[in-house]
């Protein structure tokens, strides 16, 4: 059995799928009476044409790296974690509780504590669905969906009834202390001069890069990662090799939930400076598209997160400068998920067939 070349799998097919998604989005733009070429120009100049645009693009990308990695880690253990949204919501609660609990003297110490808080709360929110899947066979997709809704209700309750400062009207926590504000790109040496004070991208971006590298080490360079991948490929084979399914599902899902929860250091600690309702803004779901697009590899996740960061920032600019609503981005996101995920075989089967046939022909010649 000949295999298709690796570049076809990791580059050609994702790029073709992406192209189809964009072409269809372009047709949709045409249908609503707008100019797709102009739309692309507005998006590119708005998201990538200035340091200001990049400051937002990388801020969104930071969120998507965390949630994309979360989906990817679970996916290696053949678990479809659709609960990133809820885990990131709870992560926000963890970060807010940590930051409000103690007068932190410096942002660096506060950041470490907030990371622990966010990751623990995110992991805790993944723990119950993981346990039910591992021990009782309850379908993790359904339980994580349910936990997204339960998480939203829980956060709503906490903000309205517990964490809202006395006298305040809107359901949100008090502002965090100034000392805990993370340095933004404007405050950093060397690159700081290019970015204005208002860009939200902050040091969490570098934590996200570090997370990519650590996930790569975990999945491809440790025994645990080997167990996760082995289990993901074949549960029966893994069982036969003495790998405990309960352990793999639990560990993979806890790491996954922890990564999703870590996102809160960017959107809550780095940008919002207080916890509000729906601070996650769908980033948990975009993680699914990012992981699919990135083929569940940290490098792919990073690139896909930048792409979606660009789409998000560009989509915002589009809504400002044209009559195309932001929701165009939701459509593009849906098409990316559809073509790279659900319709994957549409291109893959004929392309693989072509390469196998060509390889066989060369061998005979």
């Amino acid at each position, binding site marked *: 059995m000949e295999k298709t070349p690796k570049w076809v799998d990791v580059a050609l097919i994702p790029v073709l799928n992406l192209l189809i998604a964009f072409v269809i989005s372009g047709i*949709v733009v045409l*249908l*609503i*009476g707008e100019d797709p070429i102009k739309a692309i120009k507005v998006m590119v100049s708005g998201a990538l044409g200035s340091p200001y645009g990049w400051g937002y693009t990388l801020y969104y990308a930071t969120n998507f790296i965390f949630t994309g990695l979360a989906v990817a880690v679970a996916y290696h253990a053949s678990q*479809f974690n*659709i609960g990133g949204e809820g885990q990131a919501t709870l992560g926000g609660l963890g970060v807010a509780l940590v930051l409000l609990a103690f007068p932190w003297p410096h942002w660096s110490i506060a950041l470490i504590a907030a990371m622990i808080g966010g990751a623990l709360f995110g992991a805790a929110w993944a723990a*119950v*669905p993981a346990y*039910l899947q591992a021990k*009782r*066979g*309850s*379908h993790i*997709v*359904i*339980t994580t*969906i*349910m*936990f997204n*809704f*339960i998480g939203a*209700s*829980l956060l*709503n*309750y906490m903000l*309205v*009834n517990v964490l809202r400062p006395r006298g305040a009207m809107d359901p949100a926590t008090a502002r965090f202390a100034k000392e805990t504000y993370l340095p933004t790109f404007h405050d950093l040496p060397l690159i700081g001069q290019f970015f204005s004070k208002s860009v939200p991208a902050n040091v969490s971006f570098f934590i996200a890069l570090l997370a990519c590298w650590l996930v790569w080490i975990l999945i491809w360079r440790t025994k645990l990662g080997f167990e996760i991948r082995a289990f993901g490929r074949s549960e029966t084979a893994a069982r036969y090799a003495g790998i405990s399914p309960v352990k793999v599902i639990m560990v993979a899902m806890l790491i996954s939930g922890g990564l999703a929860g870590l996102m809160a250091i960017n959107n809550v600690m780095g940008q919002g400076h207080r916890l509000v309702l729906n601070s996650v803004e769908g980033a948990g*779901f975009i993680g*699914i598209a990012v992981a*699919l697009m990135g083929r569940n590899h940290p490098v792919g996740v990073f690139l896909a997160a930048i792409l979606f960061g660009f789409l998000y920032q560009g989509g915002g600019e589009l809504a400002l400068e044209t*009559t*195309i*609503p932001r*929701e*165009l*981005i*939701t*459509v*593009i*996101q*849906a*098409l990316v*998920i*559809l073509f790279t*995920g*659900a*319709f*994957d*075989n*549409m291109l893959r089967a004929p392309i693989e067939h072509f390469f196998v046939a060509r390889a066989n022909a060369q061998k005979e010649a």
Partner: protein
Amino acid sequence: MDFATIIEILDSAVRLGTPLLLACLAGLFSERAGIFDIGLEGKMLMAAFFSGAVAAVTGNAWLGLLAGIGGSMSLAMVHGLASITFRGNQLISGVAVNFLASGFTVLIAQSWFQQGGRTPQLSGNGRFEPITLPGAEAVKDVPVIGQIYSNLISGHSILVYVAFAMVPLTWWVLFRTRFGLRLRAVGENPESVDTAGVSVIRLRYTAVAITGALAGLAGTYLATGLAAGFVKEMTAGRGYIALAALIFAKWRPVPALGATMLFGLLEAISNRYPNIDLGVVNLPIQFMQAVPYILTVVILAGFIGKAIPPRAGGQPYVKER
């Protein structure tokens, strides 16, 4: 709490439970045929938009209904193409369908009506108005039975009665017809159906189409019965609650009626009493909203009876060579 209040709450429960019931039965056909469907939410939303839009333009709720079913079925076909023809991941396809609907409806609504992603208010024949059943006026003052008949049973839109009629109809189709037997078989053991010379692909596409039609009814009821027009994200998670109800009902039509009406009742109660003081504990509204999801997790965990999905659910069928 007097009797009239109880009737009022139950009446509200029926109205809120109806879209859940239709969506739940929609999911039942698909999942019984072995196609997981987490895209009920998107199909309902699409139907809500197209029914609202067409009813607003034509002033005819029936044309709206047709458009709603058409919108929902087009998404159902996308799901069918992904999960049956291309043998893709059905869960991922469902996620895509939901996002597609959520973005597409607002995009088109804005382009057609320029009202910030909603359709114009419906009135008159653009809506499915409440129907007064024969004799409802006459027996209005008869205590208990008369009140139940005229205030609870009478006075709903035609789609509510259709939804209730769908329960025995679904039961009959699934358990008393050859088609139903094959449909259930294809969800449990598609190889056996194939061996018997029946097309797995055609059966599954039929099931997915029925799902589209029923989810279309559910969405149409939202926009033209419960509300008067389409509003951005108006399904508000109902597709997921219907999914929860489907699991709660263990993929059976009659319990589906019970589960969806229970969840409708919970919504009706929390609309009327935001906070419920039980003396010992005070149940906040957020808890009431989370109850359907919590109950579903408990059921899935198998602590109160076990919910076992159709055995071939989620797996694409590959014909043996």
